[in-house]
């Protein structure tokens, strides 16, 4: 993985840059000591590391604006950072950049149940948004698996999803407004407490732009009343084709579960060894969860179980208590940890049309044999969002490269099957160089032209999303 060479003229000006940043920020909000900046050298994609020039931790939108204005004037790249949980390297620094961390912007600014929104500063963690409203029966729906740690700012940058987005949608479907700071320091508002911001859908454009168009300091988020209850069923099949057909039939039947999760045999075995959830040893396991009152849940599950039985399952387990529900979810929720016990792993999130599931799973199995690397599949089946976990040994020379090559093959397979490279993690640096596999040069050109409008000097998170050769002319011209 290549990153641009740090600009030596910026490195040479470090002391002056740090001094100027210190003038607009409170004491302790600028970190420039090499021993301390190291804490920011990577995000969740820890295979790649690079300490930044400096780190700033502003506490107000005005301070963010001041930092941006200064960096803009000094020609210093800025890499925004939420909680640093990106699996795609979205917050990976370059040696000549200032990391703009929003962690200290974590207040709840407004809670409005009549109009069903909460306005928060963007460094607040995903789960603590729900935490701020749950006593009153409300929740914020998008639930990425890192929700305990990940920040709303990062959720917006990556348009994060979660296990329950089949019913509730992803971040962009639950985001009503933002306060956005542009690279030149301009502060602007998009949307708010009303639905559908006026003019062009800039809010939709900002969401998922990976911190390349502006820095979000505040967000208005839609909140919903919690459902009365939820209950899962576990269904085991001896082939992934049959499991895929079952998913398709459930959707066609007009039931809309909140989640349909899928695990394959390697993943089931790994989680059983790790968490002993009592899963059957079968080829494909589905966890389907529905919500509502007890009677509504019964009615929906009856339809789902009827469909499941028609496909001749090897296991059918209906939860009758909170303990049984927790047990059904236990293995699924431990899947990443279980795979982690077996070695280092890379987690991808290519998305495919649901109908292509059996073909793609079979092909991943073949590739696993070719590359000699184990892979377990656990994913959101209702929306085709795969999560192949490739196991490798970080201490074995060449194994990471082999794993990355295998991962790239899987992502190309997803594109070939009519899907995409990433369903919820984002492109970052991880999938940057594969973008030209999914998109033609003109398709990338028009996206880069969008960045030209927001950030003409290409200072904001510049080495991400677009293959370096595609963005080179712009990055160099801007220097």
């Amino acid at each position, binding site marked *: 993985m290549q990153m641009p060479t740090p600009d030596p003229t910026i490195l040479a000006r470090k002391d002056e840059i740090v001094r100027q940043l210190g003038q607009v920020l409170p004491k302790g909000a600028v970190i420039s000591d090499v021993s301390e900046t190291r804490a920011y050298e990577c995000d969740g994609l820890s295979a790649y590391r690079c300490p930044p020039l400096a780190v700033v931790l502003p506490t107000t939108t005005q301070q963010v604006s001041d930092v941006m204005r200064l960096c803009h004037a000094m020609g210093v790249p800025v890499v925004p950072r939420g909680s640093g949980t990106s699996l795609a390297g979205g917050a990976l620094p370059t040696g000549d950049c200032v990391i703009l961390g929003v962690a200290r912007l974590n207040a709840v600014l407004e809670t409005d149940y009549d109009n069903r929104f909460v306005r928060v500063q963007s460094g607040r963690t995903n789960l603590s948004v729900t935490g701020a409203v749950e006593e009153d029966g409300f929740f914020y729906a998008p639930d990425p698996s890192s929700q305990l740690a990940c920040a709303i700012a990062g959720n917006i940058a990556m348009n994060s999803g979660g296990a329950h987005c089949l019913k509730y949608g992803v971040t*962009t479907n639950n985001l009503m407004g933002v306060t956005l700071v542009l690279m030149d320091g301009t502060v*602007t508002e998009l949307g708010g407490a009303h639905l559908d911001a006026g003019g*062009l859908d800039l809010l*939709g454009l900002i969401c998922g732009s990976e911190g390349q168009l502006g820095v979000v300091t505040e967000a208005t988020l839609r909140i919903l*009343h919690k459902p009365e209850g939820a209950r899962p069923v576990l269904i085991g099949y001896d082939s992934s084709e049959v499991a895929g057909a079952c998913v398709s039939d459930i959707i066609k039947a007009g039931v809309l579960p909140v989640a349909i999760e899928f695990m394959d045999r390697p993943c089931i075995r790994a989680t059983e060894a790790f968490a002993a959830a009592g899963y059957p040893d079968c080829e494909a396991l589905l966890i389907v969860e529905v919500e509502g009152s007890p009677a509504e849940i019964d009615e929906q599950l009856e339809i789902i179980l009827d469909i499941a039985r028609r496909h001749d399952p090897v296991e059918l387990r209906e939860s009758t208590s909170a303990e049984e529900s927790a047990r059904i979810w236990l293995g699924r929720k431990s899947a990443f940890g279980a795979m982690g016990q077996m070695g280092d792993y890379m987690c991808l999130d290519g998305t*495919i049309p649901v109908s292509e599931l059996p073909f793609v799973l079979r092909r991943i199995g073949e590739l696993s044999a070719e590359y000699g690397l184990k892979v377990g599949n656990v994913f959101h089946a209702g*929306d085709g969002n795969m999560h192949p976990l490739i196991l490798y040994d970080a201490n074995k020379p060449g194994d990471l490269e082999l794993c990355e090559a295998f991962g790239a093959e899987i992502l190309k397979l997803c594109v070939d099957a009519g899907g995409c490279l990433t369903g919820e993690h984002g492109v970052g640096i991880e999938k940057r160089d594969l*973008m030209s596999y*999914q998109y033609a040069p003109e398709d990338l050109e*028009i996206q880069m032209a969008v960045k030209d409008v927001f950030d003409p000097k290409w200072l904001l998170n510049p080495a991400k999303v677009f293959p370096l050769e595609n963005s080179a002319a712009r990055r160099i011209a801007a220097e």
Partner: protein
Amino acid sequence: MTMMCPDTEDALAGMITAADGPFQIVGGGTRGFTVQGAALSTAALSGISLYEPGAMTLVVRAGTPMAEVDAALAVEGQRLAFEPMDHRAVLGTTGEPTIGGAVAANVSGPRRIQVGACRDFLLGVRFVDGQGRVLKNGGRVMKNVTGYDLVKLMAGSYGTLGVMTELSLKVMPVARSMGTLVAEGLSDAAAVQALSAALGTPFDVSGAAHVQGGRTMVRLEGFAASVAYRAAALQAILAPFGAWALEMDNAQDWQNVRDVAALHGDGDLWRLSVKPSDAPGLVARVSGARAVYDWAGGLIWLAVPEGTDVRTALGVFGGHATLIRADIGTKQRLGVFQPQPAPLAAIEAGLRARFDPRGLFNPGVMHSAVQEKAG
């Protein structure tokens, strides 16, 4: 005037490349936009390319009539859940609404509060930009964060950024049954409070509307027993606001809300997107106005005497006002779209300059040509 009707993306690209003046992009021509320019119709870019009911996805060419889309989905018991309105009756237009037109105007109906707007259902788009480049963004899968989300940008861009040729959409199952709780004679303020209270429950309300001086309605959809259960629970919760009768299968009532049937006829018509609890107070600021509230007050349809400057009457508020029905003079004088704050207007102008550098597409729509000349 002759109408250009390209039947392939390449033919369309050729026309755009060869253009020496602006185009008026026409889908079904039902949504009331007229601009100076050569008429460019998407009518020949028509037909369903792919429909996978089990994956809830539809890929369709932009010029496909809405009726054809609805019919194909109905065969499989599915629908466009965002419930796009039909503008013909309220605007007095004729023609066949197209899927491309609905997407270009991001048209969403009463169910928007539950499932999202048109833009939330748009998974992918193919379009030709102002340089005649055939471009794509998004795809046909439910979750996709691969690169910038130009899909959202294209939805609701009113044809000003490019000519859309093909759209991928998420579709949803039709609910097995539908019931509506109806109260009569509520004041606007009480109605909006009641609708907000209904939305603040776990009972999954799919419509929340109030016709000024008329009915206040809360829609529930799903399996029959579930609708009955939730209706009973809501009747109890909403009792302080009035008596709520349950009416089953009153689809026509919701079509009337969707298409603003109560405000057909004379006078100007405005569409306001606001914070729901602000709605009754905002309506009261406009003298002589008649209102229909949808989205629990978040969407206000306002009929006013011809030529009324609603934006001036409203003053500063959180949201925006769009002029839907008025004579051309009023539209030019007041502007159809709410002017954007300067930083956003600059970004929008920058985007238009890159997507459509020659200013070929629907000039004057969204950004007021009159205002720009005056400015």
